[in-house]
């Protein structure tokens, strides 16, 4: 049973879908951020796999940069999270709807 590219892609897609579920389901900002990490990580698997099967390094490069981006996002995201928490003393999305319409 050969593991082909498709397997990795399917895995990646499933993980991505899990990430999407998390994004939609999570009302806690921090856990929401976790879900976005899942999204990015799932893509990384696919990149690495494609890179492997094509024998091309570009995919690894992409994954590398995705990691960097994820890390930066975490920094900014946490900054915002903390500021928000300082002000409102919670990180629940449902409290975050002062603007609408």
């Amino acid at each position, binding site marked *: 049973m050969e593991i082909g590219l498709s397997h990795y892609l399917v895995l990646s897609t499933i993980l991505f879908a899990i990430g999407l579920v998390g994004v939609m389901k999570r009302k806690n900002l921090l856990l929401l951020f976790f879900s976005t990490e899942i999204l990015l990580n799932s893509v990384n698997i696919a990149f690495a796999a494609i890179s492997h099967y094509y024998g091309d390094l570009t995919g690894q490069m992409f994954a590398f940069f995705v990691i960097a981006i994820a890390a930066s996002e975490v920094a900014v995201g946490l900054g915002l999270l903390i500021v928000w928490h300082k002000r409102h003393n919670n990180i629940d*999305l*449902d409290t975050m*709807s002062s*603007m609408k319409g």
Partner: protein
Amino acid sequence: MELFLYTALFAPFVGSLFAAIFGASPKTIIAGIIPSILLGVSLLSSTVLLVHVLSTGEAVHVEMMTWMHTGNLYIPFGFLVDQVSVTMMMVVTVVSTVVHVYAIGYMSHDKAFNRFFAWLSAFVFSMMILVMSDNFAGLFIGWEGVGVCSWALIGFWYHKESATWAANEAFIMNRIADLGMLIGIFLVYWNTGTLQYHEAFEAMKHLDTGILTTIGIFLFIGAMGKSAQFPLHTWLADAMEGPTPVSALIHAATMVTAGVYLVVRSNELYSLIPNVGLFIASLGAFVAVFAATMALVNRDIKRVIAYSTLSQLGYMFAAAGLGAYWVALFHLMAHAFFKALLFLGGGNVMHAMSDELDPFKMGGLGKTMKATMILMTLASVALAGLFPLAGFFSKDMILEAAFSEHHFIIYTVLLFTAGLTAFYSFRIIALIFHGEDRHTALGFHPHEAYPFMIKAMIPLAILAAIAGFARPYYFDMVIAVLPETEYHIHSAMTYWTMTIGTQLFVIAAIYFAYKKYMSSDIKVPDGTSEMENSFKYKLLINQYYIPYFYEEFLVKPYRALSRVFWKDIDMKIVDGTVDGIANIIYNTGENTRGMQSGNLSTMLKWMVAGLVILLSLAVIFGLTVKYSGV
């Protein structure tokens, strides 16, 4: 001659302007005198022109300036004084001069004296344009001009509801006819390429009868309105709300005869379409008897005279329709004189009776108003057509024409109408001047009119008396432009029988009228007598219920429909649709703005939802391509 032509035309205009300058200022006698003098000037000029035309037999034709010129259309202000128009000019200037002078007295107590003269002179000016124009457009200018002057003068006492109502009625009803006239003019233009009488009539000779018939009918519709022919006749009786001089000038002598003038002027057209002519004649005969019947019972002096006018217009149309154009014109002239006289006399009576119009409330006025009585009797005799006054000559000719053309029905109707005419004329003479004094009891103190007013009427009286004798000369003059139709009854026997028979019939009618209304048991009717409750009387006094019909079936539905159009269709449907679309858009926004709940979680769901929808579409498309392509 051009100078005289312009003088004749513009003198009334100058007079009108002069009076108009004082329009808003208090009464000044000069505002009446100057226009009257200017009208005299116009009369003189017209006379000069008449002499010129008589002596040379040549028409005077001038073209003052271009009015409209675009494309192939070319309409000048052109004026033509030929045998027909000079007749009309004489009639107009004579009657209007007399009426002006008379009105100085008649209107002397009116606040709006100046305004009256401004309008009256303006009317004369319009009438002069009407008769002098050498093209249909010019005719139409005069046509509408007299219409508006008539409107202003009928509604002269604008504080009276009835007067303003009558004015509007007259104007609108005339407009209905004018539309016909306008269409006629369009037809003339598009078929002949010109509106000049001469060229147009020339071109018509080569046209298809169908088109000519249409033209003839539409032009005649115009004439029907102005000359108040059935069914557009109701305005004329109501127009009597205006001051009496106005009625004399406009609604008896001049304006209402414009229709006859039009038909006479278009004789070349109507000669080509005898069927339409016959229709005109029949309608004329019908109107003659129709109006005469209404005059029989009416209790308003002026309305009686108005119906009589209507009836006489019927005669004129009968004549014109039968091709006896010159007879029609001749009757027009004669009628102008005696009818104006009759009206002015009526005006004297009104003056005397403080604007009371019911002859039943008068009686025995002959004692105090001898001059008026004589003049009115004279006019009535002329109207009745007794020898040797003008009416005899002109009316007799019409009967002869009908007879010799073998239209015996028309003849009979007209003959019968002659009797009716005599009857109702003398009915009011008898009621006003003779019989018992019924007015003193009602608190009236009648007095005779100013002497100069009486004097002013005298020329008319003279003309009404002698005009008939001018017939042969007149005939010689107008045959230059009108068809030479002389009617000779083949046998002298028949002729004399007819003439004398007619005279006797008329005299009998007069006698009957005197007998009935001079009796001392005439009372002011109070609606209780048997006669007043009879169907016939009701029918006649209500003018055959035609005004009622108009009110119920035209005016009220129009008003209601207008309201429906405004409130329901315009505001609700048309505007409602526009606002509805706007509201739908706005409300869509209002109702869906909740989608933007401001909740981050919802926003994220929207994003994912968008993605999923796109994905589904992509899959569907991808599968379609995959399985359809292979």
